[in-house]
């Protein structure tokens, strides 16, 4: 079994050994893709995301609440006792109106 000891293991060295240009793309990509070092994007999205989520939650709760059906009672309605409207037995009662 042979052993090859290498002093350094960093990528660019080996890329250089392979004899190729570092990157075929315009930007040399100092940070990994997507990573935002400044944290600005995260702050912006959070500032935007919280209100949206809270409003969403309130709306969902309101819409959910409106589906529960709380008030099922009828409003008051006064009916004066008039004998002519009571169930008639026998012949038709004469109209009082």
């Amino acid at each position, binding site marked *: *079994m042979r*052993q*090859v*000891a*290498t002093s350094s*293991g*960093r*990528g660019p060295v*080996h*890329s250089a*050994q*392979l004899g*190729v240009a570092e*990157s*075929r*793309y*315009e930007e040399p990509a100092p940070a*990994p*893709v*997507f*990573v935002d*070092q400044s*944290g600005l*994007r*995260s702050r912006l999205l*959070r500032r935007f*995301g*919280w209100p*949206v*989520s*809270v409003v*969403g*939650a309130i*709306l*969902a709760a*309101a*819409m*959910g609440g409106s*589906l529960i*059906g*709380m*008030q*099922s*009672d*009828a*409003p008051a*309605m006064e*009916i*004066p006792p*008039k004998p*002519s*409207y*009571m*169930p*008639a*037995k026998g012949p*038709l009662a*004469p*109209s009082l*109106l």
Partner: protein
Amino acid sequence: MSRHQRRRQSLLRPRRLAAPPLRFFMPLSLLACLLALLVLRGLATNEAFHDTRVAVSVDKTTVPENLLKGGPIIDARGDKNDRPVSYRVPDRTVVLSFDDGPSPEWTPKILDVLAAHDVRADFFVTGAMTTRHPELIRQIVAGGHEIGLHTFTHPDLAYQSNARISWELAQSQLALAGVAGVHTALFRPPYSSDASALDDWNYPVIKYVGSHGYLTAFIDRDTHDWKRPGVDAIVKAAMPRKPGAGELILLHDAGGDRTETLAALEQIIVKLKGEGYRFTTVSEALGATNATVPVHGYQLWAGKCFIWASKAAVLTVPVLVALLAVVGFLNFGRFALMLVLAPLHARRARRRDAWGSPVTEPVTVLVPAYNERECIANTLNSLIASDHPIEVIVIDDGSTDGTADIVEAMNLPFVRLIRKVNGGKSSALNTGIAAASHDIIVMMDGDTVFEPSTVRELVQPFGDRGIGAVAGNAKVGNRDSLIGAWQHIEYVLGHNLDRRMYDMLNVIPTIPGAVGAFRKEALRRVGGMSDDTLAEDTDITMAVLCDGWRIVYAERARAWTEAPASLQQLWSQRYRWSYGSMQAMWKHRRAVIARGPAGRFGRIGLPLVVLFGVVAPLLAPLVDMFLLYGVLFADAPITLASWGGFILLQAVLSWYAFRLDGEKPLHLISLPIQQVVYRQLMYIVLLQSTITALTGGRLRWQKLRRTGEVAAPVEA
């Protein structure tokens, strides 16, 4: 898709998620809104809670005689609840009542006829129709007519619980308050006729609504106008049994063509007016106070909000349905593509001479290893049995668990060990590429086990000079747990359908880190492995494709890997995969406008991967919301049946994939459960990594715990 199981800790430093869980709160609150909108729309269109059953009348033993023989209006309110009384419409008085409306087509015409004769009537409206046509309710109220409740969804209340009846009343009142600012004290049960039709089933309903303060208005004369018996028949049915007797007439202003009703209404009014009848409303006929009462304050605003939300729901749900259609189109499109291309690929793969003369030259196998104490010996032992000449280079990436010592102690003649300081998987592979003696480089993971023929099968396609890389077939070794079985299904499907499809289109987006081979020349031209992304395998594959090389799938080059055995490990693995794949897609986004082979990949491969791999899974929660809505609120049997059909289709596809791969279909029994647990987990992971990508946060890193369970080729 399947790849090597992990990457290096040093790539991104671990960080605890300090922020409040906005990333879970936001999707959940939006999904809750979505479900609420679906239900609101379902109510407005009378789809939710719809019940078409109609009870047939039974005994009347509990109904008091005075009600059966009495007038059409029954008062069971307050202290009359124990002994309800009924009222008749006074002589020479007629009350016209219209049920089931309002209808945008017929109600305005009926209102016109009534207005022309200066007649006021009663409209028993449903909550659903009220919600959908607020302006009609306002017209009815403005015309001096009276509104009564006819429930929200028009079910036969004899079948409904008291809670449901109460909900129907409340929801209808809410809708009325929202559209016209009124509540009403009048009620008429759906499917009702005259008081003599009261029976043991619907009498309790009348008492129950009475206890809520409602006056129930049945009818004297049913015109059966909804059956469209002809104008004359309707007019005849509306005439009083005894000349001069008061009557409450039933007509309908919704539920179909009301031309006959409209014509008959004109004649009824003229005829009865000629007989000296006066037309009025229920409350006026009784000399009572108005049944429709204005509401204020909370009731009014709650109603307005309900109507606004319903209106918004009716407008937005079609958009959601369109998105759902997009998901369906993507899924079925993918199925169709697979069904066409996978068999073609399978036929090609069966041809032994597909790649020209056999490749027999020795190749280099790179085994990057970072803390692989449990697995490395198994890995190297499996390589001893290789039936293809190989040189193995183990690159120990600064392991701290003595992995390198184990390799050294094994003292295998064909193995070279390179020890280096920890620098990440990409740098380890680049080290290995630099040290490789041969022109073809096979890459595997330190936890993967090859079959004796794997390397030979994997490198055969290199007989074709245009092929720059080959993807192997990674298999899940630990498939006997539920979570292992799910991943097994996923791997088999991913390899045998998705990858074959991508292969036929020449846009394979990922060569799994566990088993893949590259031409050294191709690697050199694209600059070796890069650590720009967490998915260096996807990144390098896309780079090789963009460079104009062909990449193919060698299905017989099987490699056995140990899949994550716990949900937590699976979560962190998939988090990295989704995130890394998206990084790679974003990194190669310029390919869309590039010329030549890069442009081909950018305009065919990239859109497919984005649509099938990102868009469809991100929209998948929508499918589950519709499913939830369908089961809970709309038609559960139909929803479950169509969902079952979809699962069946998937099962058939999976079974075909298993057959192509020579796997026993036993593990497919967990497919239905996979659809309700695993699928959701996968899209939640994708959503979370998308959020991480958007916020630009660094990814947390967790190492997969190894058990060394996958020891030797299972079917070598």
